[in-house]
């Protein structure tokens, strides 16, 4: 499906290094250390879960990676090259949580705006709308959308971008169980289409269902990083779920 394909071809064969490497990001708000020397790798075409309780620093970390907040130290490498803050938006797109943008505009106009900016053809636009079930609300204003439809709209905007790496903050917030499963399928297809996802999720069950790799975050520090198998080996908890691993590591 065209909508799920990244704007540029990712050729990961022969590139064992990470698509993106977060290197020593630190951020302090007054007397609170929001991020402390956060480092991890994001391999291509994977779904990486940024896991942590509320206040762990997930949103701050995503904003810092996207270059939307200044950091005290550290940086981001893209295929082993430094990715300056002013060029982050060229490679990374960040979808914030809980925002309702351009509320007085109609849904169709907002979607068409993103499609036009990124030169997305009508077929891609139609596929995105169909995929996220937005046809019925295209004539509605954004401020008249339910929380679930607003979240779908936001996902549609993210899918319309051509970036090979998408950062999403709480992408399942606002969905019921059935809808969460459907959106998970959509995101899996996105990853299969050649894009890499970093999802900040506080629901461990959701994260375990969709993510290939996990970065466990608590108090602004990385407490664990790897696939479920790698985390199990590190903790010695054979057959443990993400919940047990998280409790063991944080």
């Amino acid at each position, binding site marked *: 499906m065209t909508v799920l394909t990244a*704007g540029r071809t990712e050729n990961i064969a022969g590139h064992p290094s990470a698509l993106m490497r977060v290197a020593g990001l630190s951020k302090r708000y007054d007397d609170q250390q929001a991020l402390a020397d956060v480092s991890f790798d994001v391999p291509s075409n994977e779904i990486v879960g940024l896991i942590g309780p509320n206040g762990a620093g997930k949103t701050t970390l995503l904003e810092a990676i996207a270059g*939307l907040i*200044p950091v005290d130290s550290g940086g981001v490498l893209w*295929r082993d090259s430094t990715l300056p803050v002013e060029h982050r938006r060229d490679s990374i*797109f960040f979808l*914030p949580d809980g925002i309702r943008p351009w509320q007085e505009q109609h849904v169709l106009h907002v979607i068409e705006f993103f499609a036009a900016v990124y030169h997305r053809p009508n077929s891609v636009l139609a596929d995105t709308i169909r995929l996220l079930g937005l046809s019925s609300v295209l004539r509605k204003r954004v401020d008249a959308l339910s929380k679930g439809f607003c979240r*779908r709209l936001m996902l549609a905007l993210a899918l319309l971008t051509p970036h*090979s790496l998408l950062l999403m903050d709480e992408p399942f917030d606002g969905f019921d169980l059935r809808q969460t499963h459907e959106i998970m399928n*959509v995101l899996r297809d996105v990853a299969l289409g050649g894009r890499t996802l970093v999802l900040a999720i506080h629901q461990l069950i959701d994260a375990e269902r969709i993510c290939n790799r996990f970065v466990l975050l608590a108090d602004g520090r990385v407490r664990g990083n790897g696939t479920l198998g790698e985390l199990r080996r590190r903790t010695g908890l054979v057959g443990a779920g993400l919940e047990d691993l998280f409790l063991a590591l944080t």
Partner: protein
Amino acid sequence: MRSPDTASFRRVPVRPLLAKELREVLNGRALWTMLILLCPLVGYSFFQATSLYGEASAAARDSPAMASGLSPLDGILVPTFGAFYLAVTLLFPFVAIRVLGREKETAALSLLVQLPYRAATLIAAKMAAIAIAWLIALIPALSTLALWEAIGGHLSAPETINLIGGHLLYGLLIGAIALFSAAISESAATAAIITLSFTIGSWVIDFALAGQPGVLGLLSSLSLTQTLRTFEQGLLSTGLVVGLAAAILGFCVLAAIWLHPGVPVRAKLARSLACTGGMAALLVVATQIRLSADLAEDRRNSFPAADQRELAKLNEPLVVTVHLAPEDPRYADLRRNVLAKLERVMPRVNIRLAGGGQTIVGSSTEQSYGEIEYSYSGRSAKSRSTSHREALPVLYELAGRPPPTPIVGEDYPGYPLVAEAQIALPWFFAALPLSIVLAWWWMSRPPPVPISLAQDGGTT
């Protein structure tokens, strides 16, 4: 080092951004509310101005001398557009602030700054939307011009366009200040307070410091309210236009500097300092530009045509030493009637205020106080008159030239008109507001959905 994946973002269409910004303005309530409020405000000002103009015209019907004093610029345009100025000062900031303020409040800005546009492009698009909003807000004021013509009134195109141009620059300046305020504020309310502190603060400065000597006088000249006065006198001053353009550009650049949330505050402050320095330098350059055009039909900013031609031939430096305190009303008269006109027509004029710190209280008892000394071609002469009728013969004598013969038939005839503007009341209090409400409704209609996008599938 640049990301390997950046090449595909180089060519970004600006039209969708402009359309989005325009929708943002047109879909909100602020512009339409302002328009509806403008109708009675401008309409009643026009009605009052026409009534007063009619009364003065009735008195001048049999007197050509009195009739020549009746100019539609002063009698109709300036008071009517004065109401528009009031609305632009107090209401337009709310329209302009929401262009950026809403995006900051709803965090949509975090999406916007990730789009492949430069901050300058984003601000330029927002300014374009603000300019279009200003043009829409101009509709009630423009309709007064149509009504004035319809009831037989006279309009001079150059002075009318000049006045509207001045209001446009003023509106854009307010818009740029509002954008800058929105860029540095977290909420629209704070941005409104900052913008109004500029505009209302200008009124206070203008009221309290106008005519004061020294730094206070310089401060009062920076007041926003001063900007329109030149245009209201039918003068197109290049220096003023350049100064206003520099200020608009400066505030836009400041807004662009403060737009991106990812830039550290220290870096923003350093860039702002550099921008403010550049803006100040441009403003200083603007004050040195003397080029201007008198677009008033009655040529109030120029000497009579024969004198203009003769004075333009005086190429040697003229030094005028004025023994008056800057706050003395006679100095204001002299400035308006003689000095400003001399500066415009003669290539080399140097005006000096004798004793820069003079005040009326301290100096009015001095014998030389009130003297104006003209020095030209190695000779000098003194006068105490603030009228060109006495000053120009002194100049001609210094230059050794005879006064020119006045050109017959060049006098401004004046345009008296005794007319009732009753038609304005139903237009401004009913028809126009109703049309605006209809336009508002029409603009907020849901867009038609193309068939290709109307069919659902996938998730429900």
